[in-house]
Structures are given as structure tokens and as C-alpha cells.
């Protein structure tokens, strides 16, 4: 314990009308990190509210209506909730929320999707710089308090060639740019562990995102951009890590699939 799951739902209202609520009803996760919720509390559909009645919901919507948004669903009530990454530019962007649970801090992250050579990439790069500093500080604080920490979410970065089917064709594309891979490598060299990769070394994938367009899903031409990063002590307890890929194109309720990690007892 605990089991942590993370998924970019691509709009919680739309996902709730497809299969997200069925998935939630069946998950063994103790904590579920959601990204791209794209809803204010008042917009949450009745079905979602009913399905999450047994959960504690921490929602961090974006100030801009209908965009971004992250959330944490936890079986236990959080002791504390913090939002943002300490950069004024990204306040209210609905991209980061963290909750303190007993012995564990969990953050849900939705990192900006860039576009190489455009202002969107510059924004992503500024976010990366601010996030690195923030995560270093939060990790130190958690460890000082005797807590472990997990950062789970849509990083919009494939860390290495094994994490993207068509890596050669994407060398110049955002999400696989050299400095982005370098950023995540530096993060993982500074006390964070990419848990799925640690549990599944030396294999291609498992991918977590497939474009809705064309035959990307059927051909498993995906990207591994949704990650569960954990502090070393917790990462060493990972027993099971899986991407819950939908059985077929039309049973998907998001273009991402949930990433689920079960941690054993200390």
C-alpha cells in the first residue's frame, strides 16, 4: 500500500459519459491523480459526483474556463492541500496540486504541451525550470518531515527512445526535444525515480498516449509521457506498475491510459 494511479482524462465531463466512471468503480487505487479535468466544481456532472461519493476530491481548475485542470481523488482525507509551483506566471493555470496524505505527499501534474520553435515551447521551458526547483524543494521538505512523495501526471515528455514508437520521426518535435529529455534525466538523477521504467527496464513502452487520429492506437504507435515519479524510498517498494490500455479504439474514454503503480509496505 498504497496504489497510485494517474490519468489524463481529456475532459472529466466527456470521460464521465464514456467509461471513466466504470474504470473508477473498478480501480484498486487508493489515490487517483487526474489531469485535464477542464471543469469547475460547479460543472462536475451528477454521475461523476455520485461515483466519487466515497472519495475525497481535491480539484484545482484553471482560471481560464474549460482548460487544463488537475485533481486528486483519495480514499483518505488530505491533511493539507497546496497548489501551484511557486511561479507567478503559472498561478491559476490548473497544472499542479499536491495533497498530504498520511506519510505520503501526492502531486498531480499537467505539464504544458509545447510546440517546437513557438512561444508555447518557451512557456513549457519556463514551466520546466520552475517545476524542477519546486520539486527539489518539495522533495526535501517531504523527506525532512519523514514523508515519501509521488509526482504523477502528464509530463508531455517521452524520456528516451524506448518511450516513443516513432522516435526518429519526432526528434524535432516537442515532447522529445533533447533539452526536454535532458530535463527529465536530470530530475531522475536528483532523487526521483521513474517508477514504471524502473519496474519495466529495457522494453519499448509501455505507452500511455496514442493520438485519437489515424491508426495510432491500433498500431500501438504511442508515447510514454504519463509518469509516476517517486522518492527513492517509496520507489524501491514498487511491486507492480501497469498501463491500463483500453482493449479497443472505441472503448477508450481518453486518448491517454491510466498508469497504475502498487507500492508495498515499508
Amino acid at each position, binding site marked *: 500500500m498504497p496504489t497510485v494511479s494517474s490519468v489524463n482524462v481529456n475532459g472529466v465531463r466527456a470521460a464521465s459519459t464514456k467509461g471513466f466512471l466504470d474504470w473508477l468503480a473498478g480501480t484498486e487505487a487508493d489515490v487517483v491523480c487526474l489531469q485535464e479535468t477542464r471543469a469547475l466544481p460547479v460543472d462536475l456532472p451528477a454521475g461523476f459526483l455520485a461515483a466519487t461519493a466515497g472519495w475525497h476530491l481535491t480539484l484545482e481548475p484553471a482560471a481560464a474556463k474549460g482548460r487544463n485542470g488537475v485533481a486528486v481523488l483519495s480514499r483518505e482525507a488530505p491533511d493539507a492541500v497546496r497548489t501551484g509551483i511557486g511561479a507567478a506566471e503559472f498561478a491559476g493555470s490548473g497544472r499542479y496540486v499536491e495533497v498530504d496524505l498520511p506519510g505520503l505527499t501526492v502531486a498531480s501534474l499537467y505539464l504544458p504541451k509545447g510546440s517546437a520553435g513557438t512561444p508555447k515551447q518557451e512557456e513549457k521551458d519556463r514551466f520546466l525550470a520552475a517545476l524542477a526547483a519546486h520539486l527539489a524543494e518539495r522533495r526535501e521538505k517531504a523527506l525532512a518531515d519523514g514523508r515519501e512523495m509521488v509526482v504523477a501526471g502528464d509530463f508531455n515528455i517521452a524520456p528516451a527512445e524506448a518511450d516513443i514508437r516513432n522516435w526518429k520521426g519526432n526528434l524535432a518535435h516537442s515532447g522529445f526535444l533533447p533539452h526536454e529529455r535532458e530535463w527529465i534525466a536530470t530530475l531522475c538523477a536528483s532523487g526521483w525515480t521513474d517508477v514504471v521504467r524502473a519496474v519495466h527496464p529495457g522494453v519499448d513502452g509501455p505507452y500511455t498516449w496514442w493520438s485519437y*487520429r489515424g*491508426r495510432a492506437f491500433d498500431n500501438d504507435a504511442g508515447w510514454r509521457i504519463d509518469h509516476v515519479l517517486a522518492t527513492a524510498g517509496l520507489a524501491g517498494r514498487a511491486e507492480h506498475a501497469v498501463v491500463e490500455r483500453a482493449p479497443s479504439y472505441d472503448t*477508450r474514454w481518453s486518448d491517454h491510459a491510466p498508469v497504475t503503480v502498487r507500492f508495498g509496505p515499508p
Partner: protein
Amino acid sequence: MIGGRYVVLDGLGAGLLGPVWRAEDRLTGRYLAVQELHVPDMTPAEHARFREHLLREARRIGALADPGLLAVHDVLSDCGIDHVVTELAVGTRLSDHVASGGPLAAHDALDMARGLLRTLRAAHHRQLVHGAVRPGAVVLGDDGRIALADVGLALPAEEAGVPIRDQLGPHGVVAPERAAGGPATAAADMWGLGATLAFAGATEEPLSSLVAALRTEDPASRPTADEALAMLGRNGSTPGTSGRSWWKIWERLRP
């Protein structure tokens, strides 16, 4: 249920911008195709422009009323996702048809070429560009109809930052000027048509000559739909092919 009106029945696969669902219009009882349009990371202003562009294209398609274009019934947002509702074409995509049944017979390919050319001619005369002509966009209707799907989507999507040319698959359907970053044009549609005909197995005259002509690198020298139709004979009506219908061919291929 999408938009309080369209009851989703089952999935039809991947469209140009997202999943396509077969749905029943609760108002009219008609069966329709509802496509989700996923264009990531638009600002509200970009989104408004995208919607406006989609509607503009839908109206142009409506004004054309060409049997070779799937009619657009509705453009709506539901749960924050844009959807376009079109006529449901019961049949098979050329891409699937060739993958399961091999190349078309010469006369069938010729029929199809004429049908597509007449539609593209009508569209291009109205400055309506398809932008994604490929084997996967050609519907061979069970009732014999030949129609182009995904009309009116490519341009708004590209304007909103989705590189449609990257979505078109491996059949060489992207014109060289498009591959170099150029915009979707009528000439690029004609290149896509040439590749589509080649994919369908256009190896006999007069189609083989047309395919070669459509492969002209310089878009300005590529035949227009009018010129291409002229190459195939007057207005596409050739004795001996008029009684042929797609459903007969489709019947033959059924297990």
C-alpha cells in the same frame, strides 16, 4: 448521448480528428455519424476561430449539395469537445476495401475516379478544398454511391495547429508542396487523388496516364479536376459502365 440529441450506438473507428460514432438523431430518428474533433491546446480565441471556420466550411458543403460529399448536419460542443455530425455513409472505405479485397477492377477504378473528380470539380469551383484526399477518405457506399468524407475539416484543423499532412498515412498522398509546409490547395487535392487512384490499382489506360499527370511536382502544371475529367472522356459518362454499382462488387466480396 451527445448534445442532448445524438444517441451513440457504436464506434466507427478513427476519423481525421478523433473517434467517429454511429448515432441516432433522437429528433428525427435518422442514423448519422458523429465525429469528435480533438484539437489540443487552443486558446479561447483560437477555439472561437476554429468553430467559426468549421461552420463556414459546413455551409459551403451545404450550399454545394453534391452527392459526392457527406452532408454536414450539425456542428456542436458537448462536454467541452467539438463534434461534427454528418450523414452516415453505409459502405466501406477504399483503404479497407483494397486491404481486404485487393486492387479494384479497371472499370470500377474508372467509375470511382469519375465520381471523385466530379465532386472535386464542384468543390474546387466553390473554393472548397478538401485538404486530406486519401484512400481512407473515399467511401464506397453499399448503395453504389461514391463519397468523400472529412470534407471541411482539414483547413480549420490546420489553421488551429494540427498538422493534417502528418495524419494522412503512407500512401504518398501528401503533395510535395504540402510536405514542404505549404497550404492545402485544390492542386494538392489533385495530387492526393492521383495517389488514391494509384492505391486503388489504376494501372490501365486512361487512368494510368491520369495518375502520371497528377504526379506532376509543380502544382501549377498539375491537371485540374476539369482537365482530368476531360482526360477520362466527356463528363465521365462512358458507355458500358453505367449499369455498374458498388453494391454488386461489395456483395461479391462479402464472406
